[in-house]
């Protein structure tokens, strides 16, 4: 309402202006023509010929200023003045009338011609002004449109900077006008698209392409990535004639998302359909009066359906499920109920089930293409299923077997530990308890000999001697057994043992024997190892004692102890120049109570080397022997290298 009255008022105003202009222009024509007539009248007669020259410019001026109307008025007024008022003499004189009329005619036609030209000129001017007004109006409308458009709009200068943007654009991008002033559209491109976007924009800004339409991504100020539809055009601006790039932006993120979802579901369904291995069956649900699904009608099946089920299309098309599979509603899985739910409520479902009527495992996908109907897409997974089952059975069996074996082993370990402990206890206790009766036998036999020496003859004394000897040997064996059983007991952790010191102790222990035999003992520098000192003393003592014991007659015993650092162990060797051992006995010497020589020649319990072997093994090492009869014997054994041996060596 307001707008309209304003418009009317504007029209009115220009109307008044126009009228006022007409009065002015006609008045001007009359006034200057009158002035020219006055001028002509005041000039002397001599200049009578100037009549034409005076009035003619007046008419032209009036026409030029006022247009055709005022020009004509001026012409007629000047003719009136010239011919009737100011020149009656000319009429009265004998002047040729023809000349007068001719002059009049020239004058009049000249004036009219000029008037017409002037008028045309004015019309042209007016037209142009109107057009300018129109452009201005358009520009105003454009601006309103630009600012209030529901789409984002922007204008760029040839360098790609924003000249102006609208509110919607700010809204879409999340940047304010001020912020955008210092930016270009490329600042909104995701980094991965920057090169492509720049190429497009340059193509456009350089004018090689005047318009384009693309869909691209923008990164909003808050980092959110959106999809926009871009329509761009180069427009020549009316006001300054420059080319302006105008771009329209639409936020199409939602549409894109919907498209993507659509594409995704298309992909999925088309993949399902495209797969020829999948059986497809399209059915219509059949409900009872209460709307409860009770059966379904098979409408369509594909070729794969035939292949998988072995049922021919012709035999089932148009038939009801209960006809084809009479037991379908008695199966463990409720097919009708499941399909019914999909058919009636929509949605989709995927499951793997055993379909008893055909005896196959099926991977089933069911969805409803339209209410009341459903499509089942299925694949035969019986083989996989069987393989899985088999695998599971095998795995179960294996696990069971492992469990059993573990239990057995655990049981064995428990038993072994117990029997080991029993054995140790047995060895320990019996070696004590066995001592007592032995001591009784030996003591009383000897007492008998002493107290009744006069009543026992030499033969009897000989018997007593053997009895005592036997008892003593028995005792020695028991002591050995005791020592052997003690190696097993693990009462404390390994400690660093300096074998140099061990060897000194051993030499001290065997001092008498060494001096008796005159033995020479040399050795490599010996390391520090982790172990039990008392046990390692037994090792060296037994080996050196053996070397001394089994020396060759009339040969000075020479014992050499070497130590060699290996990757993980120390390799020791106790080498002698004694009687040696035949190779066939190498194994026997480490067995308990094994002896190679008559007791009378080399006394001993036959337990020493078995103790050595046991100790070495307890220290994580091994022992072996190399020997040549009448040349000498070498006992090789290893002991694990300790972590701390480096520092111990320095110490």
């Amino acid at each position, binding site marked *: 309402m307001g707008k309209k009255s304003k418009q009317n008022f504007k029209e009115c105003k220009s109307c008044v202006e126009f009228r006022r202009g007409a009065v002015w222009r006609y008045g001007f024509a009359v006034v200057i023509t009158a002035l020219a007539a006055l001028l002509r009248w005041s000039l002397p007669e001599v200049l009578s010929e100037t009549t034409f020259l005076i009035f003619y410019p007046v008419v032209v001026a009036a026409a030029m200023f006022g247009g055709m109307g005022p020009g004509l008025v001026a012409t007629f007024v000047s003719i009136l003045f010239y011919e009737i008022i100011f020149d009656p003499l000319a009429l009265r004189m004998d002047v040729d009338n023809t000349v007068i009329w001719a002059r009049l005619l020239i004058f009049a036609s000249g004036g009219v011609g000029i008037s017409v030209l002037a008028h045309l000129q004015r019309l042209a001017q007016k037209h142009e002004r109107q057009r300018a007004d129109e452009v201005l109006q358009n520009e105003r409308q454009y601006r309103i449109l630009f600012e209030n458009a529901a789409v984002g709009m922007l204008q760029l200068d040839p360098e790609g900077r924003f000249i102006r943007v609208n509110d919607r654009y700010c809204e879409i991008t999340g940047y304010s006008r001020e912020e955008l002033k210092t930016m270009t559209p490329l600042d909104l491109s995701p980094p991965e698209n920057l090169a492509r976007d720049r190429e497009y924009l340059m193509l456009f800004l350089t004018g090689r392409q005047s318009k384009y339409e693309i869909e691209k991504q923008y990164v909003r100020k808050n980092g959110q990535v959106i999809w926009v539809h871009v329509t761009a055009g180069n427009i020549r601006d009316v006001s300054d004639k420059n080319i302006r790039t105008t771009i329209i932006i639409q936020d199409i993120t939602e549409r894109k998302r919907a498209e993507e979802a659509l594409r995704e579901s298309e992909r999925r369904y088309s993949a399902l359909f495209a797969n020829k291995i999948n059986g497809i069956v399209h059915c219509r649900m059949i409900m009872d009066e209460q709307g409860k699904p009770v059966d379904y009608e098979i409408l369509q099946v594909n070729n794969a359906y035939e292949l998988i089920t072995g049922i021919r299309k012709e035999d089932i098309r148009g038939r009801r499920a209960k006809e084809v599979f009479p037991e379908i509603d008695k199966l463990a899985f409720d097919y009708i109920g499941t399909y019914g739910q999909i058919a009636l409520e929509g949605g989709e479902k995927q499951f793997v089930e055993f379909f008893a009527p055909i005896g196959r495992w099926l991977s089933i996908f069911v969805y409803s293409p339209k209410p009341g109907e459903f499509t089942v897409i299925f694949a035969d997974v019986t083989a996989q299923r069987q393989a899985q089952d088999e695998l599971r059975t095998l795995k179960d069996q294996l696990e069971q077997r492992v469990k059993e074996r573990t239990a057995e082993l655990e049981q064995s370990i428990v038993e072994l530990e117990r029997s080991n402990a029993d054995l140790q206890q047995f060895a320990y206790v019996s070696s004590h308890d066995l001592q*007592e009766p032995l*001591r*009784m036998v*030996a003591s*009383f036999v000897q*007492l008998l000999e002493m107290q009744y020496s006069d009543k026992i003859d030499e033969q009897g004394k000989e018997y007593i001697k053997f009895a005592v000897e036997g008892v003593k040997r028995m*005792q020695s064996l028991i*002591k050995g057994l005791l020592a052997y059983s003690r190696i097993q007991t693990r009462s404390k952790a390994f400690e660093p043992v300096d074998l140099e010191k061990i060897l000194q102790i051993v030499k001290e222990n065997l001092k008498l024997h060494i001096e008796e035999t005159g033995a020479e003992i040399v050795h490599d520098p010996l390391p520090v190892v982790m172990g039990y000192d008392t046990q390692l003393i037994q090792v060296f003592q037994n080996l050196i004692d053996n070397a001394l014991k089994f020396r060759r007659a009339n040969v000075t015993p020479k014992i050499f102890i070497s130590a060699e650092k290996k990757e993980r162990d120390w390799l020791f060797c106790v080498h002698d120049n004694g009687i040696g051992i035949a190779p066939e006995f190498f194994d026997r010497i480490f067995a308990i109570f094994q002896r190679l020589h008559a007791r009378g020649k080399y006394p001993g319990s036959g337990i020493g080397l078995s103790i050595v072997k046991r100790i070495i093994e307890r220290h994580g090492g091994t022992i072996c022997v190399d020997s040549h009869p009448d040349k000498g014997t070498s006992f090789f054994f290893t002991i694990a290298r300790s972590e701390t041996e480096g520092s111990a060596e320095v110490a």
Partner: protein
Amino acid sequence: MSNIHSNRFEILLVEDNPGDVLLLKTCFQRSGLRGNIHVVEDGFEALAFLRREDPYADMLLPDLILLDLNLPRKNGREVLEEVKNDDELKRIPVVILTSSEAEDDVVLTYRLHTNCYIVKPVDFKVFQDTMDIIVSFWFSTVRLPKKAN
């Protein structure tokens, strides 16, 4: 040697093996000990004797205890521990006389304040020598407190 004859020594022998009892008595006899050897066969009896409980009310406290380790009812270690924790009895020298050569036994009994630890020798001659040493040491060399009576 005169000391041995001037005083009669009281010895308590705690030993369950009759053979050993006989052997020890024989040895002591052969070594010329003048003293009374009282024999009890287990730890309970030993402690009853020492505390002069029935039937040992009239007994004198021994000058020396010879104690076996493996005994019925209450073993030698327990007897030793009780003796050495008893203010009246702990002054009495205790000689452990056993067939055990176990290092643990040696360490433990000394920790319980035994006065010495002797392993019974197998050879009778050595056994006799050992008993001679005990007799000469404890009843001749060593000075023991004078008796109240």
